[in-house]
């Protein structure tokens, strides 16, 4: 009886599965692109969202005045007719502030067909200043913007004033998505107030304005404006969001940007719809790709990428790509530690890391060695700087020069510092990720061979951040974002930011670097600024305040029938530009 029952159950299960498999929809003439998302976006609301996956989708729905071209990697006009006209407010002193004048394109419209005007931009800038918003990142970035006005005779014309000359001003002013005022503030709560009033709310006691801002923020923070009412000026409109499962965008029927596809890739709209499927596990996503449920899967591991190279299904062939991404791994040295104050010691430790081997073994070759915080694709990346070689014998020699030797023959180098015999014993903080710990293990094994005692302390990320920020560390294994455009090194590398609570948690202090940074911050001319970046990178390499490891690539796999170009910008592709091969 049992055997019969088992047979019946098994047959029923297999039949049921086979029926499910046959239910794959046929390919349609208008292509519907299916993409995997590893994490669900927190919101679709450019000011409030905090996750990179959210900005990927927001980029399809909202457009900024100008945006980075994913292929040329330059900030180019999108909504505005031309690059901003920049003039000094006081012609006698540029550093007192600049005036940015821009004009929005006549054709630009919102989802409902109403024109995009300067008042929408002004509204966006006012919203960003509201202190009651759940995310005030935009407000912090706009600290140097003093006023935003719209020409009453030409509502497409905008003027923005700043109180200084700063390399990131153009990006901050033009590279933020613009919101439609009539959708996001239907009661016109912010309309009666100008930009300055809202920006300076902290310094003035205006109870009415404060209450209005509170009321507006309550409305704007509500999940309705992040999950249901999502309306922009981009090529795609929001269709639906099924939580924890998928988000669907649809190409606009009368997309105003059709005529301007050559102006900027953000204005292109090839797929008829884009569906983002939430699939946290990369392996699961890859099986769905092989089964043609998905068209493109990014964020796969280098190991999975290597395995895919052996995939040889002629029926459903795949394209494999591994573009560079704007991030890098590094080991921060706490330059305030007595042993690490000497740059020879820092350099010696850097010489103990076999980075080529690391790229080979941990990244399966999918990473590029880097020498600093600028991306190897940055026009000012200093290719003349020679990376520190892997040279344990040279390291030992440098340590000896710095006064470190094993005087008591216990296998650990020592030195008398301020009258106290000190062992060269260091700890290295890591996150709990396998990669981070593997990097630390490689360094530790080489360090111990030359007599440096090294202990690895894995921590949860909040604890790792807390200890590093507080300067409670010797070495810390970290990752950060690399810059492709104007890069302001102040936070990480200026002496002013060193010390407890400072963002320069390396505690790196160098007068020459400080002076270079001060110049970089105000040099708007790109080629002049690039010269300064070259010097800056050279000094970092000489001083070794950190051990810069690698800039990883982001492996991705897609169906062969897709026609697409990869980009250094996250997530490595630009979905609205993807089409089907003829």
């Amino acid at each position: 009886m049992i055997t019969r029952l088992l047979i019946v159950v098994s047959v029923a299960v297999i039949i049921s599965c086979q029926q499910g498999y046959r239910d794959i929809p046929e390919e349609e003439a208008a292509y519907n692109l299916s993409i995997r998302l590893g994490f669900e976006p927190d919101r679709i609301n450019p000011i409030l969202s905090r996750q990179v996956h959210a900005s990927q989708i927001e980029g399809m729905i909202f457009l900024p005045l100008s945006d980075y071209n994913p292929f040329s990697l330059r900030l180019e006009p999108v909504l505005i007719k031309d690059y901003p006209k920049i003039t000094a407010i006081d012609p006698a002193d540029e550093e007192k502030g600049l005036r940015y004048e821009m004009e929005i394109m006549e054709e630009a419209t919102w989802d409902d067909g109403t024109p995009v005007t300067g008042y929408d931009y002004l509204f966006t800038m006012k919203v960003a200043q509201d202190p009651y918003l759940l995310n005030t990142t935009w407000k912090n970035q706009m600290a140097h913007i003093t006023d935003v006005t719209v020409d009453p005779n030409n509502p497409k014309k905008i003027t923005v004033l700043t109180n200084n000359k700063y390399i990131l001003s153009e990006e901050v002013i033009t590279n933020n998505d613009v919101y439609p005022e009539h959708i996001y503030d239907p009661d016109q709560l912010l309309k009666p107030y100008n930009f300055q009033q809202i920006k300076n709310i902290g310094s003035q006691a205006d109870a009415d304005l404060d209450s209005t801002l509170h009321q507006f923020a309550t409305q704007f923070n509500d999940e309705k404006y992040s999950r249901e009412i999502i309306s922009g000026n981009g090529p795609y409109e929001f269709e639906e969001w099924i939580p924890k499962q998928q988000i669907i965008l649809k190409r606009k029927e009368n997309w105003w940007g059709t005529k301007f596809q050559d102006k900027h890739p953000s204005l292109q709209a090839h797929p008829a719809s884009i569906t983002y499927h939430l699939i946290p596990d990369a392996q699961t996503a890859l099986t769905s790709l092989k089964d043609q449920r998905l068209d493109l899967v990014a964020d796969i591991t280098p190991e999975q990428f290597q395995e895919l190279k052996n995939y040889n299904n002629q029926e459903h062939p795949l394209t494999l790509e591994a573009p560079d991404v704007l991030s890098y791994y590094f080991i921060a040295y706490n330059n305030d530690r007595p042993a690490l104050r000497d740059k020879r010691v820092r350099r010696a430790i850097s010489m103990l890391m076999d980075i080529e081997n690391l790229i080979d073994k941990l990244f399966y070759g999918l990473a590029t060695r880097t020498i600093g915080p600028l991306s190897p694709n940055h026009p000012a990346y200093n290719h003349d700087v020679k990376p520190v070689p892997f040279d344990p014998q040279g390291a030992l020699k440098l340590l000896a020069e710095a006064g470190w030797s094993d005087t008591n023959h216990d296998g650990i180098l020592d030195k008398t510092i301020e009258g106290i015999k000190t062992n060269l014993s260091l700890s290295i903080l890591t996150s709990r990720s396998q990669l981070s710990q593997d990097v630390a293990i490689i360094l530790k094994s080489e360090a111990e061979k030359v007599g440096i005692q090294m202990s690895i302390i894995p921590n949860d990320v909040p604890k790792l951040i807390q200890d590093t920020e507080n300067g409670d560390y010797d070495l810390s294994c970290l990752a950060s974002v690399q810059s492709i455009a104007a890069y302001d090194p102040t936070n990480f590398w200026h002496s002013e930011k060193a010390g407890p609570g400072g963002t320069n948690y390396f505690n790196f202090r160098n007068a020459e670097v400080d002076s270079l940074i001060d110049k970089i911050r105000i040099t708007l001319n790109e080629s002049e600024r690039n010269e300064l970046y070259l010097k800056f990178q050279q000094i970092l390499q000489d001083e070794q305040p950190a051990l810069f490891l690698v800039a990883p690539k982001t492996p991705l796999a897609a169906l062969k029938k897709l026609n697409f170009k990869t980009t250094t910008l996250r997530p490595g592709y630009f979905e609205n530009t993807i089409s089907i091969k003829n």
Partner: protein
Amino acid sequence: MWRFIIKRVLLIVPTIFLVLTLIFIIAKSLPGDPVLAAMRYQNNSMDFSSDMIDSRTYNIAAKNLNLDKPEFYFSIVPSNFPSDFYKLSPLQKKFMTNLFRQYGNAELVFALTHEIDEIVSEDFSASESIKSTFSRFIPDLNYLSSTIKGTLNTSPNTKLSQILDLIQHLSGLGKRNNSYLPKIVWHGRDNQYHTWIRNAFLLNLGASTTDGQPALKVIFSSFRWTFIINFFSIIIGYSLAILIGVYAGWNKGLFDKISSIIMYLIYSIPVFWMATILVVFFTTSEYGSWTNIFPSVGIWNINSSDSFVQMIGKNFPLLVLPVFILSTNLLAFIARIVRNSVAEEKNKFYVRHARTKGLSEQYILWYHVFRNASFPLITLIASVFPAALAGSLVVEVICNIPGTGRVLYNAILGQDWAIVNGIVMIYTLLTVTGLLISDILYRWVDPRLKWDGA
């Protein structure tokens, strides 16, 4: 019987209360400031070079997260500290306690903290450079006074001069004996713990710190998928395990040997490994068309206008693989227990006695032997619900089912404690419910146990 059940149900309340208290203590003991963590980008990058965060912005963020209140009904601080010390940001607290240790005089130290904070948060005439320095609250008076003097040399500022006077006055007092006598500050019921317990009992778990959605909504919309796959896997797993276990234990012989080997084999395979192997090898035709047995994992046929029952209907074939994995794991474990239990009961005196009375083998097996052999099964019921949910965590991630397990996995990665706490509460409820059910079943199956608890 009802008295017993009501008594046991009432005991659930203090159990949940203790679990909630424990969750609160653990959440408060975690490293890092939850307000700062929520204010930062949550993109798993360790780029934390955030710009300065003034106290006004910090306090608004804390209020949004309901973290602006004192943590408990009372707090203990040095006797000369202000009663609203809890309102300060972690950086300000550190600044104040450090200076207090160095110079004593809590009143002056507090005044200095307040003045510096005003410059950072509200003084728009102050330069970005001085604001940036002040926002770090470095507890070094020499450093602060030299920075202020440097600024005053170039641009005079009344407020900064006042702060400089305060610093000079404080350092001029020299080190004096600190009063470490503690004082207890009573905060009343308007505290985080009280709010947490009250809201939890009212099923108001707060909003997810990741996406701002009500935690309860997120948990329940995912729980239905977890419930469905676990419901089917428990029913299938238990039914088949009982049939196989009873048959193997009663008849022994070749079936027992073969089923034992297979069950041991399945039981020794970790769920994540089995799930991965099945997904990789048996959902595509990559390894031959015959291997394409199961459809792609995940829930694909969805439409927001469909009811949940319609979604289940459309996606039923897609649920077969996760149910298969979960029930197979359950089956292997339970079948072994039933088999051993039946084999043990089979040789007991009462079985021989029943045979001599002329009862049929089927009647003896199911009415006498199985009843006595089912005690281990009842014990398992208490743990089967939380165990099934724990197992489904792995299966949901690998099979891409949008259930509670996957939500918990992402919430832990994103440190979304509102969600984590809510799911832990549900697990607690299920565990105590499981215990209650097993207690009732014990008494139902074994008349020797009394309903008064004896």
